[in-house]
């Protein structure tokens, strides 16, 4: 069943995350980041940062901190197992650091299909702000929903 196009414009719950040094160090470990400014407070400060910097793509996860981070797909009747991440884009405005509390607000800005509906695309635009209300980054994500071809009846 095609995704309900009336969901375009729908606001999404978003998330809030108090950024901790330990979480950033875990992220560095998982991504193989060995640059000391991302794990060592002294190195970060020597490089002119006020704390460990939040790396460029980490803010994507702020939006996933709700109790059920993929519920917006569920509400659209989309099986998460059929979804691939198609595109992701960031526009950066301000650095964020350990100790900051980041909040996301997002909305669905487009839904379209290709290949006669076999592939559907859900576009989500999200703003990331810090505890002072300053805009840290804007994100645009495109999720690809792979629909199965209908069974051919003989």
């Amino acid at each position: 069943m095609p995704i309900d196009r009336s969901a375009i414009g729908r606001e999404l719950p978003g998330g809030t995350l108090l950024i901790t040094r330990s979480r950033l160090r875990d992220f560095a470990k998982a991504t193989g980041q060995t640059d000391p400014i991302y794990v060592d407070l002294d190195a970060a400060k020597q490089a002119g940062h006020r704390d460990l910097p939040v790396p460029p793509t980490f803010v994507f996860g702020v939006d996933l901190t709700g109790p059920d981070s993929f519920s917006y797909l569920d509400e659209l009747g989309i099986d998460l197992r059929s979804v691939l991440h198609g595109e992701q884009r960031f526009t950066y405005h301000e650095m964020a650091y350990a100790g900051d509390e980041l909040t996301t607000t997002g909305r669905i800005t487009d839904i379209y299909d290709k290949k006669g509906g076999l592939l559907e695309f859900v576009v989500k635009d999200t703003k990331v702000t810090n505890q002072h209300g300053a805009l840290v980054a804007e994100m645009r994500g495109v999720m690809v929903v792979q629909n199965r071809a209908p069974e051919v009846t003989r």
Partner: protein
Amino acid sequence: MTTPVLEVGAELPPLTIEPISRTTLALFAGASGDHNPIHIDLDVARSAGLDDVFGHGMLSMAHLARLLTGWVPQERIRTFGVRFTAITPVHGRPTCTGTVTSIDEVDGERLATLTLRVTLADGTTTLIGDATVALD
């Protein structure tokens, strides 16, 4: 940090990533907050008709971000975007590459535009991206 090469056509030093292990996927799920079970739970992957779990797209994008921040301080990155073109299988060996494609003056700032790519050892391109980076 080495001084960036400031000319069109310059290639960033490639970044070779350790083979993607199941441990890495589990650690990345926790650290990134992306708990989609298709990346960490073989039962869920099989229920979707797949043979195995596969890497998070955002893990590969984080590797590309390392390529960028290894080249310029992070605060100079203005935009960063990718298209995910193939999945990264467990044991895949990604390499991140980037090339300066243009240098323009925008709002009084010299901006380099880069094309970015993540390629597996078998030649599969898993991400194609771009970034703009302030040079001054």
